[in-house]
């Protein structure tokens, strides 16, 4: 298992490197002038030339790319934001915990509500409860985050005055952003759970378990859910990544100073370096989440574990013969 983790960790390196190269290349070839962003509109051409030279923007593409990669991966420095002239690494350190909190609690809610809802729906297929759950899930998937966020603010902050409308602070500040952020994921999880459960619900081993007189709860927890869990874990992993990177609208609406908000500001201010830093950080986070997802899958599904074990045994066999 350790080797598997190590292998996956090593596989992350080229992925992140590719992301960095891709982001740099896209921004490099995007029309526009980083020097102008720094100097502002109306700066004389002579000054802009000086600035371009000092920023190394006149160097060839590969020189600039190499310098950037060296800075990011060797010095572990994401650079300095062009507009605010702050260290992007420090900015990310300050902001990442907010995004992580939002995504972590969001995914926890999505799991806690989505899976039971999906299970209930599958067990009561085509009954009223199932229909309601399906409609609720459909609404959850289709309602835009920003609309839901604004409706929540109008209701709970403006109308009822129960919750603060924006900012960060105590638990109350997190309730609405988390709900707005996790409703989509919750609905997706519920829908995936329902369909996965329906696949296993009529399997022979479930019929056997029932005929053995096992309790319904035992059948669900020991036989149905573990077998239905693999696609749910995949979806949950994707949702987690989506919540982490895709929380930018929620962060903006609720004025949560997370990475998403930082990225939005970077994009609107044309701060290329800030955008590159944010995207690289999110790609690293996404890769780690996907790794964790795969590990959980291997842990939950004996077939994946066996597949890995089989792979190891196959490699060991020739050595055994030689001996």
């Amino acid at each position, binding site marked *: 298992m350790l080797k598997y983790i190590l292998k996956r960790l090593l596989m992350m390196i080229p992925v992140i490197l590719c992301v960095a190269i891709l982001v740099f290349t896209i921004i490099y070839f995007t*029309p526009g002038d980083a020097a102008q962003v720094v100097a502002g509109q109306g700066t004389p051409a002579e000054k802009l030339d000086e600035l371009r030279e000092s920023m190394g923007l006149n160097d060839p593409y590969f020189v600039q790319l190499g310098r950037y990669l060296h800075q990011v991966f060797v010095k572990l420095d994401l650079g300095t934001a062009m507009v605010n*002239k702050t260290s992007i690494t420090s900015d990310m350190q300050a902001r990442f915990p907010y995004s992580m909190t939002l995504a972590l609690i969001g995914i926890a809610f999505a799991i806690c509500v989505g899976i039971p809802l999906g299970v209930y729906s599958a067990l009561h297929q085509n009954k009223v409860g199932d229909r309601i759950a399906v409609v609720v899930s459909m609404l959850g998937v289709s309602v835009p985050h920003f609309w839901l966020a604004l409706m929540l603010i109008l209701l709970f902050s403006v109308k009822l005055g129960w919750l603060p409308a924006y900012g960060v602070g105590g638990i109350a500040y997190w309730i609405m952003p988390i709900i707005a952020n996790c409703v989509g994921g919750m609905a997706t999880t519920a829908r995936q759970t329902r369909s996965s459960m329906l696949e296993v619900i009529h399997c022979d081993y479930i019929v056997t378990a029932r005929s053995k007189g096992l309790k319904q709860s035992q059948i669900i927890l020991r036989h149905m859910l573990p077998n239905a869990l693999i696609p749910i874990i995949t979806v949950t992993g994707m949702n987690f990544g989506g919540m982490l990177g895709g929380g930018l609208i929620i962060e903006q609406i609720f004025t949560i100073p997370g990475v998403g908000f930082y990225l939005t500001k970077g994009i609107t201010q044309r701060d290329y370096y800030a955008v590159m830093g944010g995207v690289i950080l999110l790609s690293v986070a996404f890769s780690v989440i996907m790794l964790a997802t795969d590990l959980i899958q291997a842990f939950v599904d004996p077939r994946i574990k066996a597949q890995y074990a089989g792979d190891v045994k196959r490699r060991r066999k020739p050595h055994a013969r030689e001996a």
Partner: protein
Amino acid sequence: MKKICMKKALATLMALSLALACAACGGGAPQAPAGSAAATAAAADATTTAADAADAADAADATSSTAGASDAVASDAASDAGADSGARTKVTVGLTNTVQTMTPFAGLNPYYNMILGEIYQRLGMRAEFGSTEFACALMKEYERVDPVTYSVEIHGDIYDSAGAHMTAEDVAWSLEEAKSIGVPGANYLESAEVSGDYSLTIKLINDSLGGFETLCESCMIITKASYEASSDGMSSSPVGTGPYVLAEFITGSKAVIEKDGNYWMNKSATAAPLDCYAQNVDVIEFNFLTETTQMALAVESGTVQMGQWLNESIVADCDAVDGVVAEQMESSQMCEVLFNVTDKSPCLDANLRKAIAYCVNGDLVVQNVLYGIGYVPAAMGKVGQHGNNPAWGAEYDYFPYDVEKAKEFLAQSGYNGETLTIMIMSLPNFVAGAQVLQANMQAVGINCEISEYDDVTYGKYQPANTGYNYDIILHNMSMRGAYLIQTLAQWFDQNWYQDGHNMIGMADAELQALVDACMAPDWTQGDYDALYKYVYDNCLMYQWYANAFTVAHPESVTIPSCARGANKGELLVGACNFPADWSYFAQ
């Protein structure tokens, strides 16, 4: 039966959703802001023993089940308590943009200046927005030795909020640092040499008009010792000499500043406190509300008492709140119509340019694009800049909307039905404005199309002579700078671009001579009048409409002119006048 049940369930669900949406959309009763008649009455009613206040606070805590809500409610209760106990007054301000760093070298972003302008100070600046008077702040006095050399003396008893004593060395270091970091305006500096404990000699790179004033206004001055003691270049822990100090800063979310009890200007033997650096409120909390809807809701609900630089679309909503006024003030922003005056464009023809200027309905733009928040200027230029002549408005008929006149000029022009390209930045106001312009032009028979650009690429394609194909540009210009020519030079000075043409593509000796005369240290008003006449007669540029700087605030709060920062008209909240019965207090 089953189907009927299903339908009922579905109908119930839909009804619930509808009810939720309706409940959310229904306007809540707006909370009267502090200082308003309603709030004053409420405060009077709630009088006002400490015990009552404590009860109120308890009640508030009991009714609100969450910490956040209790923050809001408790602040009201605390206000009652504060009224009796002499607690510190507080104002919560909503800003429509974020401030991500507190570094003194962040430049001239007006949002930054609203906060940093209270924490740091400059050598000097124009006393207030719309004024040409230059006032000393950290400087005691200055003398112009020659066109590029200035002798400066600072006050001898300046201390920053950490207690560090400021000397001439700190000033020289701050200026050099600003220059090396690339703070706009600091590029006028050639060198700053210390000549005494509190005196230094500042050399400029050239004798450019307004260079010294711009340098002084652009650079925040700090002590080197405090800067070096800061681990992050004061990005999150600023130490300045201003009237307020930073108490809390959550990047991208909020910043809280509070009155500096040891503010040097209050104790100085030589410096008279400046009105713009007043400490009229003890604590100022800035909330960064980049979402327009959030800002409107925050003003409506009274979460923020002052909403600054409101988007035009929410001004009416904020103004409708009981006890709140959305005050429109002059901003430095001006939208201009610029022409491509090269042989690549039909706009080389002055009659066509005038036809376009006359066909533009400025009022329509103000009403439809700016929601009525703004005005149509009567002349080119802005008050508060040297060289601007208020008489121009009466002397010249500044291209009023006149379709007949536009058609006359069009008939005199050599226009042959070509399709003109209007180049704009891809921003909502420009798009809407360009559409109005397009409709106006087509109404008199001028064909045109709109070409949108991202703001970065827009800057690259701007100079008319670099071969890019456009005929008209809509541009938003900040009319800052101590002298009008500092703004106009960007369009008309042929030395601005390396190819010898100005931005609108002209290489005109007569125009350049006029520009040079205005830029000379011994300029006269006659020089500016002559330049104005030339630009007007040839219709080289047409200032179309001016945006307004709108602040929503309680009726009882007044904004004196000294509270407007000279550079971009940013609002210095500490200098605003708060009523004696202000009922918001820091906890």
